[in-house]
């Protein structure tokens, strides 16, 4: 059976504009959450988000190129550039058909859509800019990345809300494993911090307001006083490569992907179940041939909502039994926020770095234990310990679950 390794990564998020600063900030429990700067949020009840601070697109792209790039595509190309650079991969022309990309996005070109609707409804425009469609389509990032790097193999976008990147990476993993490609760029991108999107999220009543306190501490997963999730933006991509291909070119192997489980709750459009996510974890363990007791670390879905965290705790207890209290589980969303369709990739990047470096990033902003979330959530301080096998959970609205399992490179 073909083995699949990670040979490059790129992260562009509120907690860091590259892999090093991203992981360094996570390990120092440094949050990227603050007051929204992309527009005036004064009229919203939720005025905070995890934005990429000080981002100036002109620093990254020529103006002609920018005309066709919505913010989530810009982030994708930046993350792709980091990934390709870190991998040292130079794709030969005859290999282009074996090189593809899968990029997830939950919200698509939210910025362009919001702008278009504003023109249309508020300013009574009778026509919209002709670049609107090629900018906002969910598949714009993957097409832009393929064009940039000449990836001519299997390529598509995924849209499964908060699991979009988990599904993207899982599918890319299987494409390489089952011989349909040798190299895949996989991950996710989202930039949903617009007035319209924030208004829509506001009414779901799952967002932390951070009112009356330090916004950077607003997201407190697994903590008894948690008050909800915080919307984030960003992109992360990983280069998945068939192991012999990677070895032949002397690539640096960050970790190996060994399992992917996906299930559907078929339950409720927002409420998660225990059974669906639990099955997804078991499927990933089975594919990897790993016993539950071998898992050292779980990067939780850990949104910080009242509902998610106790359910996820039950899921972990259901699958791991006695081992549930011995393994470490942390939610890095406490710092980079919920990056929607990118979150599975951002979190897998954190998971891979935990495995590679033997440092588990903490659940930040943890204040008091919740009896319903009584696992070792690595509160507030990173922990140095060997991590051989780790899991990244993504459990989306609508009950679409994607679980990825990675193993330390050997």
């Amino acid at each position, binding site marked *: 059976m073909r083995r699949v390794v990670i040979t490059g990564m790129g992260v562009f998020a509120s907690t860091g504009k590259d892999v090093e600063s991203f992981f360094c900030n996570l390990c120092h429990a440094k949050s990227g959450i603050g007051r929204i700067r992309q527009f005036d949020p004064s009229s919203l009840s939720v005025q905070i988000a995890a934005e990429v601070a000080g981002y100036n697109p002109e620093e990254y792209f*020529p*103006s*002609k190129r920018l*005309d066709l790039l919505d913010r989530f595509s810009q982030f994708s190309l930046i993350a792709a550039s980091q990934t390709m650079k870190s991998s040292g991969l130079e794709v030969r022309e005859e290999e282009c058909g074996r090189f593809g990309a899968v990029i997830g996005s939950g919200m698509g070109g939210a910025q362009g859509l919001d702008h278009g609707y504003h023109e249309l409804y508020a300013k009574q425009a009778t*026509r919209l800019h*002709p670049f609107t469609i090629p900018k906002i389509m969910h598949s714009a990032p993957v097409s832009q990345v393929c064009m940039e790097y000449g990836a001519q193999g299997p390529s598509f976008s995924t849209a499964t809300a908060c699991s979009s990147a988990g599904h993207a990476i899982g599918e890319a993993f299987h494409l390489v494993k089952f011989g349909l490609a040798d190299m895949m760029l996989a991950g996710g991108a989202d930039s949903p911090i617009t007035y319209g999107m924030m208004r829509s999220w506001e009414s779901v009543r799952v967002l932390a307001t951070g009112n009356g306190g330090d916004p950077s501490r607003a997201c407190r997963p697994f903590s008894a006083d948690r008050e909800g999730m915080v919307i984030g933006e960003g992109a992360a991509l990983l280069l998945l490569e068939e192991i012999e291909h990677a070895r032949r070119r002397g690539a640096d192997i960050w970790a190996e992907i060994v399992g992917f489980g996906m299930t559907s709750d078929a339950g409720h459009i927002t409420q998660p179940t225990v059974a669906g996510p639990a099955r997804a974890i078991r499927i990933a363990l089975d594919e990897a041939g790993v016993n539950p007791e071998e898992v050292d670390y779980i990067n939780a879905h850990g949104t910080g909502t009242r509902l998610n965290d106790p359910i996820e705790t039950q899921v972990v207890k259901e699958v791991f039994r006695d081992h549930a209290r011995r393994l470490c589980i942390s939610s890095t969303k406490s710092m980079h926020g919920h990056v929607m369709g990118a979150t599975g990739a951002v979190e897998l990047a954190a998971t891979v770095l935990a495995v590679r470096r033997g440092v588990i990033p903490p659940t930040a902003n943890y204040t008091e234990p919740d009896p319903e979330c009584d696992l070792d959530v690595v509160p507030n301080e990173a922990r140095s310990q060997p991590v051989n096998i780790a899991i990244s959970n993504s459990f989306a609205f609508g009950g679409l679950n994607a679980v990825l399992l990675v193993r330390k490179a050997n």
Partner: protein
Amino acid sequence: MNVEEKVIEIITREQHLEPGVVKPDSTFAELGIDSLDGVNILFALEEEFKIDIPDSVAQNMKSVRQVVDSLTRVIEGKDISDLVAMAKGEARTGN
């Protein structure tokens, strides 16, 4: 600023070209203007001149000269049925 100058200014701006590159006798092909760039330029022209350029007329705009000529006639409210007919003829034989 006459129509020709305005058209050249808009194409220069939308294509992010250096001033002086776009000339009255430039073709879209010479300027590297593809079909998507073309609709973007049309959009900018419609916004600038506050007019609607019919699709049939738009299809004939493949050079600065053609843009200026067609636009001038649309702006002046002149009969453009021959342009429409030409476009339809091209459409019939185009592929």
